């Protein structure tokens, strides 16, 4: 058997988490070095995997061991281009989150080990090809995130953490029902084998509904989104980054990996409904974001809007739409990560997130202001930056699909509304003369710039050369569509 | 006179009786444990005896005896460790000194 690279990528952070926890708060300095090292090594392993990845090779680096043979549960990991993009995002953002929270003073051992534990769950979700394993990782993610919010969060952290936990748990319970139903019908827990099983459409409809609840809460799709702003506002910066950057993608990943290939007939039936919810999410999220007075809440609602484009692309079920969906997932992870980092960095200095109290960043702190403006333009979908790629492809795909034109046009209006809330933010926060809270603050440190630079680079690379991302995702998308067609 | 099963059983019964008496009458924990060993060895003697005279072709009883001896060796080790631990706390190995588990 080959070197179990995926297992190492998934579980190395677990080892790191254990070491950091054992080192304890007394040796927190060593602990954070260990945490950073582990995360960097993990990222390097992902990069190494990517370098050996065969873009046309379908599922690769397969590891399959029997786990509970009596009911056919296997330890089954594998990776394709779509998973790779998500794992890369998760590994990168974990490294950046650790570096960005380098100076954490409250219970640092627990903090860093929770971040690493979170990475285990995130990496695992994207490479698990067995439903039970998938579900384990899916739920595993909740635990560290709960503690990250509940321990290091803002004033209402308990409320937000519990809401986050219960809401997503509520969704995943339905998912579990769906998994069990599928198992009873097909006799396997293997996600890949189930694809194209040709299940009865009526049965598919119900299972799709169950999965929909589980995934839609995570994405989140209007009207199941209200846990998101609360969680984001209360969560510490690094947790917000990972929450928006990776956790939301688990939901849309679920649609792409599970709902579409396994339940193609139901997906086709649901597509208009999903497109409608997507369009509403886009416009509604954008409008609500426009009215926010808290920077973090604005970015949180912008996530609702952007994830709407993911759902629109998924609902289109065209190569362009699905590629667009994955591209938005990736780009949103990068760009929103950047935005949350920046809002956090500004908050560290000004001790306020109120838009009304912060202005003139570009005059006082040109680096921070410039990067915030850059991230904003990436977020509003300026061509040449990554945000455009996915939104554009989603729209193109949606137009070419059976989705009613009205929803596509409504979604396109969302692009305009995104420009409105993002520019209005730039207008008030970045431009103008420095406000009282801003005057006298220091610009970004080298460490903070180092956190943001990789994201800036990715935004530009993906935005200018789409294939840097799409060459990984397109074969995966094609195989998803082939599975749907084969059913 | 050949030694038969009755001889063995008698010896074992005597040994067991001595052990039981010792275990019940002694206050010193070490003595009690020695007595317990006597009783255990009486049982071992029985096992060997039955094996030799009742089922001579099967070795089951003999193996059992060896197994039992190994277990009691471990048991004594553990017991003595406990006694030492008690001694450290109480400076005594009198069993009556240890009554913490009184209900």
């Amino acid at each position, binding site marked *: 058997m080959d070197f179990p690279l995926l297992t190492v990528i998934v579980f190395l952070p677990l080892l790191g988490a254990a070491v950091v926890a054992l080192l304890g708060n007394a040796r927190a300095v060593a602990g954070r070095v260990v945490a950073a090292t582990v995360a960097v090594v993990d990222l390097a392993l992902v990069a190494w995997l990517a370098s050996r990845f065969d873009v046309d090779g379908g599922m690769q680096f397969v590891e399959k061991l029997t786990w509970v043979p009596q009911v056919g549960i296997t330890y089954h990991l594998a990776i394709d281009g779509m998973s790779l993009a998500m794992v890369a995002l998760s590994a990168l953002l974990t490294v950046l989150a650790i570096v960005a929270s380098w100076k954490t003073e409250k219970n640092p051992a627990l903090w860093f080990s929770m971040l690493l534990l979170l990475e285990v769950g995130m990496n695992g979700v994207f490479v698990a090809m067995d439903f039970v394993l998938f579900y384990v990782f899916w739920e595993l993610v909740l635990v560290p995130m709960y503690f990250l919010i509940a321990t290091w969060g803002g004033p209402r952290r308990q409320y937000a953490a519990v809401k986050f936990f219960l809401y997503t748990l509520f969704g995943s319970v339905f998912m579990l029902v769906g998994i069990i139903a599928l198992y009873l019908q097909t006799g396997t827990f293997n996600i890949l084998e189930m694809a194209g099983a040709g299940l009865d459409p009526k049965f598919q409809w119900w299972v799709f509904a169950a999965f929909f609840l589980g995934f839609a809460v995570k994405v989140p799709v209007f009207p199941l989104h209200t846990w998101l702003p*609360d969680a984001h506002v209360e969560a510490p910066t690094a947790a917000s980054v990972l929450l928006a950057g990776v956790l939301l993608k688990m939901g849309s990943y679920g649609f792409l990996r599970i709902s579409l290939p396994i339940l193609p007939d139901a997906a086709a039936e649901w597509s208009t409904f999903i497109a409608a919810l997507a369009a509403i999410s886009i416009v509604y999220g954008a409008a609500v974001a426009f009215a926010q007075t808290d920077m973090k809440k604005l970015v949180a609602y912008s996530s609702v809007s952007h994830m709407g484009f993911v759902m629109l692309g998924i609902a289109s079920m065209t190569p362009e739409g699905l590629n667009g969906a994955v591209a938005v997932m990736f780009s949103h992870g990068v760009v929103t990560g950047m935005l949350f980092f920046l809002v956090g960095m500004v908050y560290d200095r000004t001790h306020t997130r109120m838009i009304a109290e912060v202005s003139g960043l570009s005059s006082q702190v040109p680096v921070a202001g410039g990067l915030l403006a850059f991230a904003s333009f990436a977020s509003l979908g300026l061509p040449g930056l990554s945000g455009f790629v996915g939104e554009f492809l989603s729209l193109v795909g949606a137009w070419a699909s059976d989705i009613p034109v009205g929803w596509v046009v409504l979604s396109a209006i969302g692009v305009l509304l995104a420009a409105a809330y993002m520019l209005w933010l730039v207008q008030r926060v970045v431009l103008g003369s420095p406000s009282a809270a801003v005057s006298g603050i220091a610009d970004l440190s080298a460490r903070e710039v180092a956190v943001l630079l990789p994201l800036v680079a990715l935004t530009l690379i993906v935005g200018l050369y789409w*294939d840097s991302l799409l060459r990984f995702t397109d074969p995966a998308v094609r195989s998803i569509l082939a599975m749907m067609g084969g059913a | 006179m050949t030694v038969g099963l009755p001889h063995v059983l008698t010896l074992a019964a005597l040994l067991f009786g001595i052990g039981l008496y010792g275990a019940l009458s002694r206050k010193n924990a070490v003595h009690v444990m020695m007595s317990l060993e006597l009783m255990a060895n009486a049982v071992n003697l029985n096992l060997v005896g039955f094996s030799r005279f009742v089922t001579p072709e099967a070795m089951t009883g003999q193996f059992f005896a060896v197994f039992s001896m190994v277990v009691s060796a471990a048991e004594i080790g553990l017991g003595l460790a406990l006694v030492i631990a008690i001694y450290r706390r109480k400076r005594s190995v009198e069993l009556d000194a240890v009554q913490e588990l009184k209900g």
Partner: protein
Amino acid sequence: MDWVTLIPLLPALAFVVLAPLSRAARAKLVPLAVAAVLGSLGLSIAAFLAVWPGGHGEVWQASVTIAHIGDRAITLGLALEPMSAIMLTVVTVVGACVQVYSLGYMHREDRIGWYYAVLSLFTAAMLALVLSDNFLGLFMAWEVMGLCSYLLIGFWHEQEAPRLASIKAFLTTKVGDLGFMLALAVVYAEAGAFDFATVLHHDWTAGTATLVALLMLFAAMGKSAQFPLHVWLPDAMAGPTPASALIHAATMVAAGVFLVVRAFPIFEASGIALTITLWVGLITALLAGLLAMVQHDIKKVLAYSTISQLGFMFIALGAGSSTAALYHLVTHAYFKSLLFLGAGVIIHAAHTQDMRQMGGLAKKLPVTSLAFASGSLALAGIVPFSGFWSKDEILAVLLHEHQYVAFAIALLAAFVTAFYVARLWFRVFTAPTQQEDLHEGHRSMLVPMVVLAVITAVIGFFGPTLGDFLGHEIPWPALGTAAISTVAALGGITLGWYVYGRRTSVVNTQALKQRFPHAYGVLANKYYFDLTYGYFVVGGYTTLARALATFDARVVDGVVNGVAAAWRSLSAAGWTFDGRIVDGAVNGAASAVRAAGDKVRTLQTGSVRSYQTLIAGAVVLLVVWILVKGA
């Protein structure tokens, strides 16, 4: 020929070098940006010569595939052909003039480095736009230009007005860009590609062609500030004047026209789209011209004039002559940027943008006034200045197409144009001097103006050559139309002179305003577009957004919290039930057990010896019992 790539790449590199630097380092590297655009200018002229003598077809083409999706590939490419060659020279000439001019105009700004960086990025995007061989690349460059326009309008962002103007400009053009995005989606769905060759040779049905054409027209209306999406351009004058000259007069606003020219076969396949284009142009040309008559801010006059002239280009397009539109685009780029640069000198000298406080500048600013005269006569359409030739071509096309109503409106617009040009000229240059201490501009500002003035004066003689180069015909003006348009222009100028030029005192038009209060009110309020948009669109959206935010917090989240609260009270009730009854039973059982335990615990002496005795006794009893039972 791959050096053509360098034309947009040089200014782009200048941006890449300048943008990440500190303010001071950027300022030092300003010459780099100027050198880059001069390099592009040189290469553009070389490219022009390489295409010469023109006619048909591509001379050079290069592309790169940026994405593979399914079995389709998305490519971005550049192509050099006559039209892009002409546009290259226009953009680089005006761009170079503006950059040299800005050395003088902006030298006191401490953020001059940032200004040059954005100007370079803009130039790069505009050059990429004209060279692009596909709609996607054109759109990407189009959007980047929008960004640069936003950044430059808001250059003095510490002040309120530029800040608001910049966001207004970006969002208004973005409204149009929605049309572009959707048009691209339709194009991709229909033709499966974005490149001009495939898309334009696609077999368009009239319906789809109309859809695509109208969506693109909408985009062009946003970018080229046509009614009713024109509102951003006058406000955009809050930016630095040279930037206005380049972006909001010569190049970016013309990109809308350029887009329609590129997509012209689709417009022709539609038919109805051309008619709509024509009327958009007519309405814009006339209404914007009327507005230019009542503005007091010199830059706003020029801004409305730009809108009006862009309207003329749309008229040409609507009448079916993309060549005439392109011709007017070229001439307008030169003379309007010239006028803006002149306005910059005037503003520097007079320290105000209000024409009512100017006057008599002709004597103090001789070079500027001469150069400005060249531009003004071109704008008014006086032979032999460039605007005459191209405007005449547009009018000739209208006559040729038997569009007599359109011809009349266009002629009226030309008359209005001449009037407001005269108004501007006489107010600024010949009216009584109201200020002392007026100074001519710096040499770095005058040289570019002279260059542009000379081009404006002579370029009209090359119309037919230009036509040949493009592979179309641009005839010399027919005597009849030339006479009619000259009469209109002279009439406008005469009227302007009559109102503003003939007196020696400062003109006061209060009486005129009082005589036509309603008409003046409509014009002064800019046909109420800004008020309507501000109230209904911006105000409406803001109110809606706030309402939705409240809805989200109260209703959507309220439901969630309500469920949670209901569940909590249910569980509280359950707690009571649980505590009293369910747990009561459990506790009852427990206390019974405890009572029994209390009794039994006395057995638990804790003494090892008593346990031993107990065990031994029990064993004895057991043995006895077995013996008795067994017997």
